[in-house]
């Protein structure tokens, strides 16, 4: 079977634009490819900056490992900065590995690929297509642009120049181009540049495909991304802030880019054998609906805010399934998948996994510890190139025009300092994306604690001469803006539930950003929530929602209602969020949870499945699916879902493990269960005695103690008139919401936990909960008496609060697979003691000394009868 693989990169291509075009027959080449292959979403990574992402595609690794941390890099000789080069990449790319294994690769336009690596095959680097805008200026092909260099003479004429663009090229995209005032509007200039560059890449690609032998071919186009950055704001539906005249002129530009890209694909497909595996993919999507940004925030790489989480993926070939949707793909999976096609080992240090789901016949993946440790010729550069020509004015200018980087500082040392900070910050964001908060914080602390020079009068004057200061920078401002670093620290402290620190960072942001333009209501609401101020948090979000409704604010409102166990309201809010954005995995998963709590298991399973379709590596969605299926009685599939959740979770998924045990037990017994409790002794089980205060919990503790169950108590609370035989309490229980690490000591023992604190029990243990019930009037009377109030005056507020707690216990019991719970009525314990003790002993699953237990009953203490 042929092992030829063609990988085509379409930066920013998005299904949201593609599907309607396919439906209209306007992307026939892609449609054909889909019809004979698989398709799906491609998840992007944080931060979604293309050179970092395409390097992850090429290495199977996250940027902390591959080393490409941004659009620019500091030159090795420290003389300045330049567009990122292949020298930043510290890991071997797929084509390096293939070179070592004797395969031929052609790589065209990959970002970054300059200087071209000396691989077995051809590299036309990402500098090839960059030419001067002014036709009078020469654009020589510099050394390092093409490997082998001898190929330069054969393809130098394949570069297209912007001045060659004619109305025959423009009018299909911009039919009203003649109405453009080219003095004021540089739209056509951008158009010509993007078109020319991508046509050059395509011409070089078709040439090497035809003329050079290859086993692996990779070609990268930035056409769609650059068109989207330039013209997406004019894409239909018209946004009210966009003038009608401009909308009429540019409204077809984005669609035009997709159609031209499809035409190029059509030609490419003519040149491959039917037994070549073809992959077309993007690194992220692009916002095309209401989330489009009309006024870009003023910070570096802000345009990436328009990048959407999901890109696209299509694969077709001799061993690829036909017309199937595939799920859960990530950029880092591409290299392992292609290595698997070539029957080569995947590095265990690669972050991605082979996408085996796409294959008809699955080859068992082979593994190697790391390709980085393998000695030999990998077609890499021997030394770091330090030529001055690596600094590329044209490329820098394009990145500036796209808004990805600021115009470099006049002073080289300032430009270097800013670049270093940006790269370090990007790396911190990579760690943040990987939830490695410690490493992320380490870098962010370095960034906020560094001493930065400030702008002086002369810096300011010089900048003004060239261009009016667009950033609003003034004399005395530090050269490096630390606000983005504080924003990430705020995000981390919220993720780590360190609300006090989060508040400090939020205040710091408010102090530093006087106008306070940063949107922080989510952070503020989360801090308030963390501090238990639920109503205030809800008020803030409701205000934000009324001000400018969007998916995220509705979702956060829904999450708060979920915390409050108000599932009907939570469901409504999340459904609103989905009206804004239908393809957010988190929204579907949360909606599924609400539906389970509301008893609508079928619909819950559907939403959990949708969530998994969107993001496969989403353990909570698999877990929720398992819950829904278990409730529906489909135990086999519930187990599969729980198993997947347990496997995917980077840390142990305790709930999934417990749920798997439960389902396995049910499957073994194959009988109807109405409750999870099946009275089986479980090793290291923790017996919890719970209930509302004054509902007989101390009595039950005393009985268990006499019956032979060890008790976890510090005996700090002494017996008194209200409880003459002792309380059997354990002080750390009271602060279980802050620290539940002591639960390890409770294994095999019994501990008393009042009802409102049950939700803080760590799901990693198995619990047998004996929940003491007592007539609520009796409970309230007893409590009133204990605190010296009139037992005959019963506050109604207390009744409703207690009822709420009892309701929450029921919900908690249902959702925690590690919890088995029985209710025991206090009165029954006193009046039908033998039966009650039988129930307790059977529940705990050990033989108990019931005689001694019964001796604990002192009916004279049953004083507050209703």
């Amino acid at each position: 079977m042929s092992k030829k693989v063609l990988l085509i990169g379409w930066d920013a291509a998005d299904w949201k634009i593609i599907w309607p075009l396919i439906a209209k027959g306007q992307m026939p080449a892609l449609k054909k490819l889909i019809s004979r292959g698989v398709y799906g979403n491609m998840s992007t990574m944080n931060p979604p900056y293309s050179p970092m992402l395409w390097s992850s595609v090429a290495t199977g690794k996250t940027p902390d490992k591959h080393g490409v941390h941004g659009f620019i890099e500091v030159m090795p000789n420290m003389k300045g900065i330049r567009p990122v080069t292949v020298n930043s990449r510290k890991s071997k790319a797929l084509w390096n590995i293939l070179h070592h294994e004797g395969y031929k690769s052609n790589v065209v336009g990959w970002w970054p690929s300059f200087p071209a690596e000396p691989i077995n095959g051809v590299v036309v680097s990402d500098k090839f297509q960059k030419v001067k805008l002014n036709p009078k200026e020469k654009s020589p092909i510099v050394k390092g642009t093409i490997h082998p260099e001898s190929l330069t003479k054969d393809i130098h004429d394949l570069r297209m120049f912007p001045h060659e663009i004619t109305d025959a090229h423009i009018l299909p995209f911009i039919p009203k181009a003649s109405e453009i005032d080219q003095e004021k509007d540089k739209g056509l200039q951008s158009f010509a540049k993007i078109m020319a560059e991508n046509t050059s890449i395509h011409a070089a690609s078709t040439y090497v495909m035809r003329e050079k032998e290859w086993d692996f071919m990779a070609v990268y186009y930035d056409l769609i991304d650059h068109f989207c950055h330039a013209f997406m704001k004019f894409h239909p539906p018209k946004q009210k802030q966009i003038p009608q005249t401009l909308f009429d002129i540019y409204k077809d530009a984005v669609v035009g880019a997709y159609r031209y890209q499809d035409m190029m694909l059509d030609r490419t497909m003519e040149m491959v054998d039917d037994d070549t595996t073809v992959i077309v993919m993007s690194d992220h999507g692009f916002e095309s609906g209401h989330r489009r940004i009309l006024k870009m925030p003023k910070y570096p790489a802000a345009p990436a805010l328009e990048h959407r989480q999901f890109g696209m993926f299509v694969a077709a070939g001799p061993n690829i399934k036909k017309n199937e949707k595939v799920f859960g793909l990530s950029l880092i999976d591409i290299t392992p998948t292609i290595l698997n096609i070539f029957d080569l080992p995947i590095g265990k240090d690669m972050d991605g996994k082979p996408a085996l789901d796409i294959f008809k016949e699955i080859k068992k993946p082979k593994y190697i510890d790391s390709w980085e440790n393998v000695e030999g010729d990998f077609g890499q550069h021997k030394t770091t190139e330090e030529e001055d020509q690596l600094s590329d004015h044209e490329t820098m200018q394009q990145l500036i025009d796209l808004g990805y980087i600021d115009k470099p500082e006049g002073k080289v040392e300032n430009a270097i300092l800013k670049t270093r900070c940006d790269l370090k910050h990007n790396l911190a964001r990579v760690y943040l994306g990987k939830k490695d908060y410690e490493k992320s914080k380490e870098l962010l602390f370095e960034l906020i604690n560094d001493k930065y020079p400030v702008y002086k009068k002369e810096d300011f004057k010089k900048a003004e001469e060239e261009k009016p200061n667009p950033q609003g920078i003034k004399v005395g401002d530090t050269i490096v803006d630390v606000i983005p670093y504080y924003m990430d620290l705020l995000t981390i402290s919220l993720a780590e539930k360190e609300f006090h620190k989060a508040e400090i960072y939020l205040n710091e942001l408010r102090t530093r950003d006087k106008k306070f333009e940063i949107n922080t209501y989510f952070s503020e609401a989360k801090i308030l929530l963390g501090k238990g101020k639920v109503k205030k948090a809800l008020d803030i979000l409701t205000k934000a929602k009324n001000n400018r409704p969007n998916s995220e604010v509705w979702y956060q409102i829904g999450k708060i209602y979920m915390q409050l166990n108000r599932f009907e309201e939570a469901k409504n809010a999340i459904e609103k969020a989905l009206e804004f954005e239908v393809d957010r995995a988190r929204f579907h998963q949360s909606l599924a949870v609400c539906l389970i709590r509301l008893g609508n298991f079928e619909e819950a399973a559907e939403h959990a499945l949708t969530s998994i379709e969107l993001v496969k590596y989403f353990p909570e969605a698999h877990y929720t699916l398992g819950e829904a299926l278990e409730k529906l009685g489909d135990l086999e599939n519930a187990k599969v879902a729980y198993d997947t959740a347990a496997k995917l979770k980077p840390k142990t998924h305790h709930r999934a493990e417990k749920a798997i045990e439960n389902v396995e037990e049910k499957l073994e017994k194959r009988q109807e269960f109405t409750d999870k409790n099946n009275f089986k002794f479980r090793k290291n089980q923790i017996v919890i005695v719970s209930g509302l205060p004054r509902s007989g919990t101390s009595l039950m503790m005393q009985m268990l103690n006499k019956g032979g169950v060890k008790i976890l108590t510090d005996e700090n609370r002494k017996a008194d008139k209200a409880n003459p035989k002792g309380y059997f309490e354990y002080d750390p229980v009271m602060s279980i919401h802050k620290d539940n690490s002591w639960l390890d000591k409770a294994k095999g023992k019994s501990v008393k936990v009042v009802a409102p604190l049950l939700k803080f029990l760590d799901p990693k243990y198995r619990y047998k909960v004996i929940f003491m019930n007592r007539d609520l009037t009796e409970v309230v009377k007893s409590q009133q008496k204990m605190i010296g109030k009139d037992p005959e005056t019963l506050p109604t507020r207390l009744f409703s609060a207690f009822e709420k707690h009892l309701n929450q216990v029921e919900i908690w019991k249902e959702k925690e697979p590690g919890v088995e719970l029985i209710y025991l009525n206090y009165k029954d314990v006193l009046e039908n003691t033998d039966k009650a003790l039988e129930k307790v002993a059977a529940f705990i699953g050990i033989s108990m000394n019931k005689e001694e237990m019964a001796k604990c009953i002192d009916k004279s203490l049953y004083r507050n009868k209703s």
Partner: protein
Amino acid sequence: MNQNKPKREFKITEKGSLGILAYGDIGIRAWRKVKKELYKKDSE
């Protein structure tokens, strides 16, 4: 290369077309050749 696919025929004008650009190296070279010939004719 897939030999079974039919060869396409383009009428190449001086202004070119998206189709000819999308055809890749052969297209761009053919277009430039046409432009050059027309330029040569005009200047004769």
